[in-house]
């Protein structure tokens, strides 16, 4: 009898609590834009995937050495005692995303959080991030003068369903980086610009004659997560004339997808690329290091590679002779004119976005901090003498002219680039594409891999949202 009562108690407790699965929408700490608006003691935390001495060290240094002291100073002048902390993470994007998703779900995390723009859709649909208008008030958001400096295409990174969720940090473009020293040894030109996939393969075959050199690493596999999609599948897909999401449907296992997987097979099936490297746990970091050691010929990467990886002073894989040794070229379409919109060359762009955590205790002050971090001075200070395509036109005008690579991206690549669809389903589609490349580099045929992709896609988004295949 007693045992039964215990059991009944346990079961009823479970049933009573089970109503709580999912998020509680209206807790006390949310929904009030003006809570603590007049507080004299304010504590704010900035969360970002950057860490001193590691990933995005420049960004971490900027937050600790510039943003925090200057913001504290500015607040002090207003009579507010602000304490700003930096929650710097230095991990894979995948782990970082898991961490902040758990933070958002449990009411933790920083007040200002940096996320990849492509995660915005799923976080927003889950209510894990909220529109700025709701969090801090539409009048306050609209009155920021910074919006006028942000191009619409970039601002769109921080928008979901026509609502502003955050302020973008900037944008980037994808190009083919190549090692000019190796190119010279293989008898390839200094100003290499392939005009088709065949040109890329031809160059790689010449590089193969050098011993100890991997001709080309085209990001593939599931370990590299979004890097595979952004620096591999999507630019190639754009080169076949399709984007992954068109007219409300996701691209199934069409001939375009098979062509892309076919190029992977040409590269990794014939020893032009190293398939094992793509499967290593730290394969991407390793590919950076090998490029810096003059052991990889060609790498499809974003301009992040130029400014944060092989950067001679603070990069994660420093190349002292970067300015003379590293060349870049636009990513060609499969053949001239076969790209999306009849383009000869293609690219993909993305960018990070800083959002205000809906659980913040100080929404007004967090928004102030966010504006402060996106001011002209702050954005310029963030670059610390280096160049980057920031969110602000006024800053870009000043800094890009000093850097040939970044001005190339701004002038030549951004006009032809494409953005990923910011939908909640995108990460699942991306994962399916990564799996397809993983299948090809481990020996399956493009047709088999495409068939598996089709199944995974239908399972992820539903048959009615898949086109072709």
């Amino acid at each position, binding site marked *: 009898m007693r045992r039964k009562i215990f059991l009944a108690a346990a079961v009823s407790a479970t049933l009573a609590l089970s109503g709580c699965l999912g998020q509680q929408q209206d807790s006390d700490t949310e929904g009030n834009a003006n809570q603590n608006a007049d507080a004299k003691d304010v504590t704010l935390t900035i969360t970002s995937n950057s860490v001193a001495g590691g990933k995005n060290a420049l960004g971490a240094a900027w937050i600790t050495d510039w943003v925090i002291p200057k913001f504290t100073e500015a607040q002090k002048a207003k009579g507010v005692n602000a304490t700003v902390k930096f929650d710097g993470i230095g991990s894979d994007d995948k782990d970082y995303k898991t961490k902040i998703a758990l933070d958002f779900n449990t009411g933790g995390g920083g007040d200002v959080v940096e996320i990849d723009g492509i995660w915005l859709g799923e976080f927003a649909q889950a209510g894990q991030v909220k529109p700025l208008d709701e969090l801090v008030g539409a009048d306050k958001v609209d009155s920021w003068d910074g919006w006028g400096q942000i191009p619409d295409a970039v601002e769109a990174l921080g928008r979901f369903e026509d609502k502003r969720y955050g302020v973008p940090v900037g944008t980037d473009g994808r190009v083919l980086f190549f090692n000019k020293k190796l190119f010279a040894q293989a008898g390839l030109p200094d100003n290499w610009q392939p005009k088709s996939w065949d040109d890329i393969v031809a160059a790689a075959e010449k590089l193969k004659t050098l011993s100890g050199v991997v001709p080309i690493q085209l990001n593939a596999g599931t370990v590299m997560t979004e890097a595979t999609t952004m620096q591999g599948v999507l630019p190639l897909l754009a080169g076949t004339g399709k984007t992954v999401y068109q007219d409300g449907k996701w691209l199934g296992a069409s001939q375009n997808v098979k062509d892309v997987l076919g190029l992977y097979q040409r590269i990794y099936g014939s020893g032009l690329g190293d398939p094992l490297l793509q499967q290593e746990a730290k394969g991407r970091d390793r590919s950076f290091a090998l490029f810096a050691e003059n052991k990889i010929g060609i790498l499809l990467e974003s301009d992040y590679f130029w400014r944060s990886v092989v950067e001679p002073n603070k990069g994660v894989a420093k190349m002292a002779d970067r300015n003379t040794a590293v060349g870049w070229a636009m990513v060609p379409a499969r053949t001239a004119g076969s790209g999306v919109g009849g383009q000869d060359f293609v690219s993909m762009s993305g960018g990070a976005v800083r959002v205000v955590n809906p659980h913040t205790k100080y929404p007004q002050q967090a928004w102030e901090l966010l504006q402060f971090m996106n001011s002209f001075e702050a954005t310029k200070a963030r670059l610390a003498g280096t160049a980057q395509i920031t969110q602000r036109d006024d800053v870009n005008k000043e800094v890009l002219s000093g850097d040939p690579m970044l001005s190339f991206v701004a002038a030549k690549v951004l006009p032809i680039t494409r953005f990923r669809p910011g939908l909640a389903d995108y990460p699942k589609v991306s994962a399916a594409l990564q799996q397809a490349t993983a299948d090809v580099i*481990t020996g399956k045929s493009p047709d088999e891999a495409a068939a598996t992709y089709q199944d995974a896609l239908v399972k992820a988004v539903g048959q009615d949202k898949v086109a072709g295949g």
Partner: protein
Amino acid sequence: MADPGVGAATLVEAPRPEEPRPARGATRIDGAGLGVSRALGFVAPALLLIGIFLIFPALWTIYIGLTDYQLTGPASVAPAVVGLGNYLEALADPLFGNALWLSVLFVLGSAVIGQNVLGFALAWTLRSAGPGLRRTVEALVLLSWILPGVVVAYLWVAVLSRDGGTLNAMLNTPGVAWLIQYPMTCLIVFNIWRGTAFSMMLYGSALAAVPPSQIETARMVGASRLQTVRDVVFPHIRGHVLTNTLLISLWTFNDFTPFLLTAGGPNHQSETLPVFIYQQAIGGEGNGRLGYASAISLLLLLANLVLALVYLGVLRRRRA
């Protein structure tokens, strides 16, 4: 929450200590002389902790397993109950089948055969070894057992590394990426190395219980070493073998350390069930499928139960 009155009622209903013991007896024996209510008072804190940290999460997992709850996206706000959908999906999911098969392989190779045989061989050989040698070997084997998993995984990654790894240097095989080309073999060898100490110690003490006179007799009548082990030693330690196999099988089946070496890769080739659950729940990009992962956790628990029941059945039949 549950009505607290339920618990209170339980206590009130309980017979008072001064009440005469009911004659039916057996179930009401009051060994400590405390009376049921006081006894309950003593165990209540423990029961509370078990309830909060064991029973509640277990029931909670079962409940999540019936929903499509996710880490992000719409299903994280309003999870829908999908009933047995997750279980049906798992049974049809080739990745689940793959994980189950790899788990079985992992348990058979590294625990049932590897640790058992190596552990017994070590214990048997060390019986006749000098105390100095015995202690040294035991210390080394124990060391691999007591070192923290993260440290051990780091060492193994360094040994098996493709560039400058110790194994490649020793075998003169530059450029072999052991963890990528032979992931399951690496995991099995790793787990044998890691867990043999337990079997060695258990068999060490079990062998001490075998009467030396019987081994001596067997030797006198000319039994070979294999015959001695099979016909003289084994009947004495049969129970130990089964218990040991049960324990190490369950540990290995639930072991998460493989994740530290291969993270289930490359391309799911070393994704045992616990790693698979992690990858589905929070590991993989685009996954975050907490509902599905919870359902598979329950299947893992069931597999454990089946394993335990099989062993217990065998043990009982041997005794009977």
